[in-house]
């Protein structure tokens, strides 16, 4: 998993509330054998017309937001199905941070497993950042996980809360696997012991 320390990037505004994981990645794309490659179908049914052409009104299709790395979204982002394909699709597209007033629980957890930082801010802060984001590509937000702040284009810094353990994992790029790998000496010691006592294993 990639570390998350600081990120300065374009923020795309998605003021819609209850953006569910079906919208993020529709079910027909779950048959894949990859976690990667889902980015092209991110928000598929909002992003494309049924004939496959782009909907020019969708935010990520607008020139200013094509390279967005942050989404500022309405309440309850990521609700619905538990599919881990949703964070996989966001990550594959290049989104590393989502800012909202609230997230659905499973989606929130899944983000941390994939190096995506979900930030919860109060309503007024989200509204201010949404306004910033609406300024287009000039509106770059800076997210600093270490100091737990989001800084808008005008220099206003908004502090956010974060569980210390999760923060530690993201800062160091540690998922469960990364954490277990920190215990490599114990695993090696176990293996050495078994190689002696149970060589047939």
């Amino acid at each position, binding site marked *: 998993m990639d570390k998350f320390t600081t990120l300065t990037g374009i923020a795309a505004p998605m003021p819609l509330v209850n953006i569910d994981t079906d919208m993020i990645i529709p079910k027909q794309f779950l048959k894949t054998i*990859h*976690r990667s490659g889902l980015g092209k179908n991110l928000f598929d049914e909002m992003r494309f017309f049924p004939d496959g052409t782009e909907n020019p009104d969708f935010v990520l299709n607008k020139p200013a937001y094509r390279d967005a790395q942050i989404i500022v979204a309405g309440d309850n982002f990521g609700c619905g199905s538990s599919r881990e394909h949703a964070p996989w699709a966001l990550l594959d597209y290049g989104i590393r941070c989502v800012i909202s007033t609230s997230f659905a629980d499973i989606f929130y957890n899944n983000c941390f497993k994939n190096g995506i930082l979900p930030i919860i801010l109060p309503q007024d802060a989200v509204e201010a950042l949404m306004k910033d984001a609406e300024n287009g590509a000039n509106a770059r937000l800076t997210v600093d996980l270490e100091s737990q702040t989001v800084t808008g284009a005008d220099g206003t810094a908004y502090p956010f809360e974060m569980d210390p353990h999760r923060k530690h994992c993201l800062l160091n790029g540690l998922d469960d696997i990364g954490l*277990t790998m920190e215990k490599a000496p114990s695993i090696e010691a176990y293996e050495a012991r078994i190689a002696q006592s*149970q060589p047939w294993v």
Partner: protein
Amino acid sequence: MTGNPTHSGPRTLYDKIFDAHVVDRQPDGTCLLYIDRHLVHEVTSPQAFVGLRMSGRKVRRPDQTIAVPDHNVPTTPDRVAGIENPEGRIQVAELDKNARDFGVNYYPMNDIRQGIVHIVGPEQGWTLPGMTVVCGDSHTATHGAFGALAHGIGTSEVEHVLATQTLIQKKSKNMKVEITGKLRPGVTAKDITLSIIGHTGTAGGTGYVIEYCGEAIRDLSMEGRMTVCNMAIEGGARAGLIAPDEKTFEYVKGRPHAPKGAAWEAALAWWKTLFSDEGAQWDKVVTIRGEDIEPVVTWGTSPEDVLPIGATVPAPEHFEGGKVEAARRSLDYMGLKPGMKLTDIKVDAVFIGSCTNGRIEDLRAAAEVLRGKHLAPGVRGMVVPGSGLVRMQAEEEGLDKVFLDAGFEWRLAGCSMCLGMNPDQLAPGERCAATSNRNFEGRMGRGGRTHLMSPVMAAAAAVTGHLTDVRELMAAPVDA
């Protein structure tokens, strides 16, 4: 033994295996458990391998990782020409590539040793007593028949095991299921395991690891024990276990990956300590008399919908709570009316195979019933050996001929009809007597109707064209 024992007093078999594999224990009881064997198939592993690639990780113990495609593979001889379904084809091709790139043990589709992962593991001697065995597949419980702690895991955990050879685990509770006495003729391991689920329900084992014991379990062959443990998951348990004994050692001895020479002796010495101590604590105990178990079938769409073959289809009102509605829905889906005799249910298809009943003994038992007989008119039958080696053995014994003469199709190894991921499927409304383990709606094909039963019961249904008490077909005693 090694490990950090949780108790100093008497321990269950599960306690012993768990304790022996603890790499690290947190104050809250979360443990890092070492995994001895990691079995991998094509459906639940692709994203895990992608995860490894994305993070630049290796498979920690490719020598302890065994991969085989089974779910998607066609079971017709033309499969050498490739898989028609593009998604299935890609999943299998991906497994080929991952196995090669990461250097894990691999049995590709056209290897004679290929087969259902839970049949291949024991057959090749990968599964040994006292081991921890995981696979991204819920029927990993099968391997518990060897006194191995074996259970299914999710794709994230598959990646975790690939990368670290460990799994983050909390201890489950201990449950003992004792089957006392002897089974009656015509009653098999499948009837035991279905009857247990009928007794405890599909959630009865939730939070537990089950140890099956008692005379009737001891009397079972290794094949039968695998059938029993296979369905531990249908009872909701994390795993099912049977203490290893002489039969286990006999089965394991000489298998390609079983220990040899001095290592065998050392292994044997440890394996002989693998039993639940006198006075070990059980959180739940279920006892069933072997004599009380009848040949059973399922009537509904949950594996707990089990009844003796002599019974009638129940009415939804017989049940309580949420089960009333579930039973109504089941009967509707299954196209059955309360009160009708189970033996009046006609079948369109018979499927003999799967990781529950796709081993040589299962084929022998079914062939015994079918010998000299033929499928009832209008019934189609399919026999799918659990592995290429089971198929070969059956052919050496002439069982293929028995099945073919009876009008069955004789297929190549794979999961086949057990789940509709490959071309073998039921048509909507088609009714099947099946030796597999799940009768869920749509499991064997959209709209397909599944009745679970033993191989001999499936063979009996094949001959008569309706659900049948196999004992009626069994050779009558000579002295009348």
